[in-house]
């Protein structure tokens, strides 16, 4: 697996670190990890950096994860980039909405490192 650039969007810095650790435990080689605490920060990062994987929370201040994914459709650097939502909000309607907007996977918190591996690695 080639080294990748990942963007992790979550308003919890602790959760961002956990997600990064799970990716490394899954054998994902990370050349760069960009972190954003909300969707607006995530969009700014994608606007000026090429990334290979995006993992995003949904319930965040300023811009939530669904709005973030919706806005990513217009970002040239996000074309074809797999997006996986990681969130406490695991209702079917939200899952469907996220997938319709372009997310490729959905992980509900709390999660295990194996779940991150199962949902992310096949997309890389």
């Amino acid at each position, binding site marked *: 697996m080639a080294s990748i650039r990942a963007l992790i969007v979550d*308003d*919890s*810095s*602790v*959760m961002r*670190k*956990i997600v990064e*650790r799970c990716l490394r435990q899954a054998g994902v080689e990370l050349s760069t990890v960009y972190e954003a605490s909300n969707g607006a920060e995530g969009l700014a990062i994608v606007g000026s950096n090429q990334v290979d994987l995006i993992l995003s929370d949904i*319930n*965040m*201040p300023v811009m939530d994860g669904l709005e973030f994914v919706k806005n990513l459709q217009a970002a040239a650097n996000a074309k074809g980039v797999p997006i996986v939502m990681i*969130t*406490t*909000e*695991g*209702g*079917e*309607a939200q899952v469907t909405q996220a997938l319709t907007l372009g997310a490729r996977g959905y992980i*509900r*918190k*709390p*999660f*295990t490192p194996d779940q991150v591996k199962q949902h992310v690695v096949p997309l890389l």
Partner: protein
Amino acid sequence: MTPVMTTRVAGSTFQRDEWSSALYEAAAEVFELMVGESVSRQDDAAADGANDTTAMVGLAGALCGVLTVRCSASSAAAIASKMLGEPLGSTSGADQLLDALGEICNMVAGNFKARIAGLQEKCMLSVPTVITGEDYSLRSLADNERLELCVLFQNQPILVRLEVHA
């Protein structure tokens, strides 16, 4: 035999025993998976120790109320350190422990509503708020039902409370 207490709560039926079990199971799973330690329920330990760090998440929609997770700052620091898998930073540690407890509260709330039929789709969560200090009172402006339980994490009490607006 104790009668089952039921109250109609904004479209859901509040069943004390069932919801109390769901709340404990939600908290236990969050600690098991995200903190990496098991917790045990021990409600009579609730009054022990300082509980000066409180995380809160609001619930709105089919269920309106607030879920709080309350513990000592040292327990919150231990939780954060376990979640991060490393000691807390000397400068960022204070923020990390608040962040970690807020996220625990958020996940317990999300996991709880996923265990109650009909709530997953129709109940939304706020982003977490964390309060430090013990000298405050929280007063709901509506009649409410209250569930409270205590779990022991590293032999220290963690109080989990759900107040539901009737």
